[in-house]
């Protein structure tokens, strides 16, 4: 039976996306992903640790999942607890003892790479000690411009002069049980496997060969088995970026006639939604409230020296709420991707436009019994642009769907109500009960320092829920927040909407069921936040795409277009915390109290986000941005008053609870809260 194997690349405790072995972008927390893979009954899992440090950093303390131990060896037993499939573990294995440590923590196989080249006798020794089946040799091959293949080690940095097929044969002789063959030049490219490379290795050995490196679409898997003779096919990136990628990839392999275990979408022993221990979670919350009452703040008691750097082009700080990465010159990933997009030749956007049309064409209702697609709209400038583009430029019939969080500004409310008129489209506005909203506002603030948890989860659930209900196979989102703000992914990933992203980034690991049992909330009260099941999504073929992957995207331009063509109103009252007037009119707290909490936690706010984007698109200088940031980021906004009345809380209580969330790497206490500020 052939196997389909997801590879998780771990760097300093977080899953990363890799490109040509050199660029690593942070994807998220392995626990959510492993749970999901168990859910889908995957054939096997390969976990490769490419850490550069012994410790890792989740970067923030407002996430539900925190690790007890910060090292890989500490993480492994936690992963093993969610992993009832064969688990191969690689990275930083130096000797028999380091292998023994991994087996003792739940690994079934160890993956050797550089060390096998340096000390081949380790392969034989390991094979004797643990059995050949427990020893996988990972071979990283680079194809030179002249077509010659060469094995590289040390994460692709060191050439060895060896040919992959010959080295694989030697590994078999030394006692290896399996070969994992990876292509350095195909890594992260999305171009498909180097089939000749895979076949050369398959022909050289009689042990199973696992192909890896380059998969960009589900169709890329099968040829490695049918043409190149691999026993198993593996990939990393694709499984991070597409909804139900594993079952869909399997479906494609099975359709190609490959003999594999059947698709399975549920595992009754692991629900997709995390399970929480209500008593323990209540105790955690109570402890935080006690700290707030006693004014015991972590940041005030931390003695370490605070360090902070900023992107050399925009204003992004090194410690942020987002998984931001910087290159060797201190340029942030957001700027790198923005520069790359600006350098796109026109025909690249034309190519992307064609792909978008194909996706929409596939979703088009053939008999008029349903809408062609759903657009999740807040009534903001981007919603206007999305609807304009899909309906009036491309000619499809969308259903607009809105989660109504009860925090609309006056102008935002008018913008929302105007959409069905100016676009002449159907529009469903979903309004949760206000009593429930008040509870969720309060709980979100107390539990994770964010009253808008309900909004993030509502917005990321309702459009998918309505689409599933009406069997509409496509949901169109605007921009991918992290991709556009911090350039988290390559433009070639064509990142799609996923449950994992919703839970991990929108929900911070707090799924709807977390709230059940708090303030008397029952499961039935939380229907609005319950995501469609994997089975429903799979049966409909439902997927969510981001428009910003296919058309040039600029918030300022979207706002101009919305005003000129459709009477979109910008705010009549300026915001307290940012100079932009056209953003976030759907939620008065999003630019206000919610954003102030980001400042309290991480030391920066939305003005940094807005100014960074404006610097990248060339409409603002860095010096102008710094002036704005220093003026706006620290401002305590006036909408807090409305929120406090809404949820019946005093300002003193608010401030004290907020202070428990201050990040000790940013803030210190010295006659008041202090932090480093960005300088010109």
């Amino acid at each position: 039976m052939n196997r389909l194997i997801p590879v998780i690349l771990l760097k300093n405790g977080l899953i990363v996306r890799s490109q040509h072995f050199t660029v690593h972008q942070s994807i998220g927390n392995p626990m959510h992903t492993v749970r999901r893979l168990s859910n889908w009954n995957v054939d096997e899992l390969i976990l490769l640790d490419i850490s550069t440090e012994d410790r890792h950093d989740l970067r923030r303390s407002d996430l539900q999942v925190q690790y007890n131990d910060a090292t890989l060896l500490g993480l492994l037993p936690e992963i093993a607890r969610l992993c009832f499939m064969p688990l191969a573990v690689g990275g930083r294995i130096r000797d028999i003892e380091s292998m023994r440590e991994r087996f003792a923590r739940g690994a079934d196989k160890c993956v050797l790479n550089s060390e096998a080249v340096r000390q081949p006798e380790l392969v034989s020794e390991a094979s004797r000690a643990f059995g050949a089946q427990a020893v996988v040799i990972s071979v990283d091959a680079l194809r030179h411009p002249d077509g010659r293949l060469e094995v590289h080690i040390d994460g692709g940095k060191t050439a060895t002069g060896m040919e992959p097929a010959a080295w694989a044969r030697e590994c078999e002789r030394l006692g290896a049980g399996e070969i994992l063959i990876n292509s350095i030049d195909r890594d992260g490219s999305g171009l498909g496997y180097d089939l000749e490379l895979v076949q050369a290795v398959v022909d050289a050995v009689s042990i199973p060969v696992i192909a890896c490196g380059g998969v960009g679409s589900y169709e890329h898997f099968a040829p490695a088995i049918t043409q190149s003779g691999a026993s198993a096919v593996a990939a990393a990136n694709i499984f991070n970026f597409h909804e139900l990628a594993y079952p869909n990839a399997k479906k494609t392999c099975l359709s190609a006639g490959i003999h594999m275990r059947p698709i399975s979408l549920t595992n009754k022993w692991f629900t997709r939604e995390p399970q929480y221990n209500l008593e323990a979670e209540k105790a955690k919350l109570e402890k935080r409230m006690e700290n707030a009452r006693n004014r015991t703040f972590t940041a005030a008691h931390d003695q370490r020296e605070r360090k902070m750097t900023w992107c050399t082009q925009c204003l992004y700080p090194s410690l942020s709420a987002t998984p931001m990465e910087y290159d060797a010159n201190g340029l942030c990933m957001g700027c790198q991707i923005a520069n790359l997009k600006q350098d796109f030749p026109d025909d690249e956007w034309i190519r992307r436009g064609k792909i978008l049309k194909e996706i929409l064409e596939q979703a088009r209702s053939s008999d008029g019994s349903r809408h062609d697609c759903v657009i999740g709209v807040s009534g903001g400038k981007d919603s206007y642009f999305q609807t304009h583009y899909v309906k009036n430029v491309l000619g499809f019939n969308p259903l607009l769907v809105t989660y109504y969080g009860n925090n609309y500004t006056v102008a935002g409310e008018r913008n929302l109500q105007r959409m069905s008129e100016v676009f002449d489209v159907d529009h469903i506005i979903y309004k949760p009960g206000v009593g429930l909203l008040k509870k969720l506002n309060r709980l979100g603030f107390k539990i994770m320092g964010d009253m808008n948890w309900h909004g993030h989860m509502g917005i990321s659930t309702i459009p998918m829920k309505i689409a599933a209900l009406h069997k509409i196979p496509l949901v169109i989102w605007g921009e991918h927040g992290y991709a556009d703000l911090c350039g988290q992914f390559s433009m070639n990933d064509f990142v799609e909407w996923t449950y994992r992203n919703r839970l991990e980034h929108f929900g911070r690991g707090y799924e709807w069921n977390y709230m059940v049992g708090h303030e008397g909330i029952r499961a039935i009260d939380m229907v609005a936040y319950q995501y469609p099941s994997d089975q429903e999504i799979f049966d409909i073929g439902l997927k969510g795409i981001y428009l910003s992957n296919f058309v040039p995207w600029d918030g300022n331009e979207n706002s101009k277009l919305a005003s000129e063509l459709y009477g979109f109103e910008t705010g009549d009252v300026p915001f307290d915390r940012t100079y932009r007037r056209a953003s976030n009119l759907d939620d008065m707290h999003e630019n206000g109290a919610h954003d102030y909490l980001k400042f309290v936690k991480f030391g920066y706010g939305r003005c940094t986000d807005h100014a960074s984007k404006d610097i990248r698109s060339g409409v603002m200088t860095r010096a102008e941005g710094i002036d704005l940031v220093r003026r706006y980021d620290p401002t305590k906004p006036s909408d807090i008053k409305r929120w406090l009345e809404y949820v019946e809380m005093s300002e003193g209580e608010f401030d004290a609870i907020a202070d428990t969330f201050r990040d000790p790497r940013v803030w210190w206490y010295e006659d008041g809260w202090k932090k480093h500020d960005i300088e010109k």
Partner: protein
Amino acid sequence: MTASRLGARIVTVVDLQIQNILSVENALQVIGAHVKVVRDATAISNADLLVLPGVGSFRAAAERLQGSGMSAAIRDHALVRKRPVVGLCLGMQLLADFSEEHGVHTGLGLIPGNVVRLEDAPPEYRVPNVGWREVTLSREAMNILPAALDRRSYYHVHSYHFRTADPKHSTGTSVFGPATIASVVQKDNVFGTQFHPEKSQEAGLDLLHALVTGLR
């Protein structure tokens, strides 16, 4: 957890201290059992359901069992007190009379038969037999296991296999080249799987759940 919780049956896992039992412990916990780990003979004497996991060499495991007195305690548990035993992978092979792995070594003798080397059947079937193999269950096996577990695939890793003296004790079989091998063995209250249910995803966990709730 959506699946039914057990009435917290205590499952005693024998730790031979030659391999890790973490995965087996985790799997039993997931299906709702209360796990107790034992490392000596006295601790076995009042056990209810005994699980004997194992990876590695038969000889090392058999010597540990005999040297520690656990061999006699397990036989007493199964044959005199008539309490259930579940052997997993090497633990299943240890239920046999003897093994031919690197010499001849005595097992627990709870199910008549011997353990012999698998024969290569290239190109598809090579020793060690590693991977997902479909298992066909007999009617006998389905007295304890739900029919839904028949013809599911389970994760196998082994170079030797259990040849039962009486074919009726081989109640779940899989194909290895021209040979049919015992993937499940069973006699009275003694049960064994050649594969690793703790590494076989939902089907494996379902199987463990059925054993822990059904074996008396």
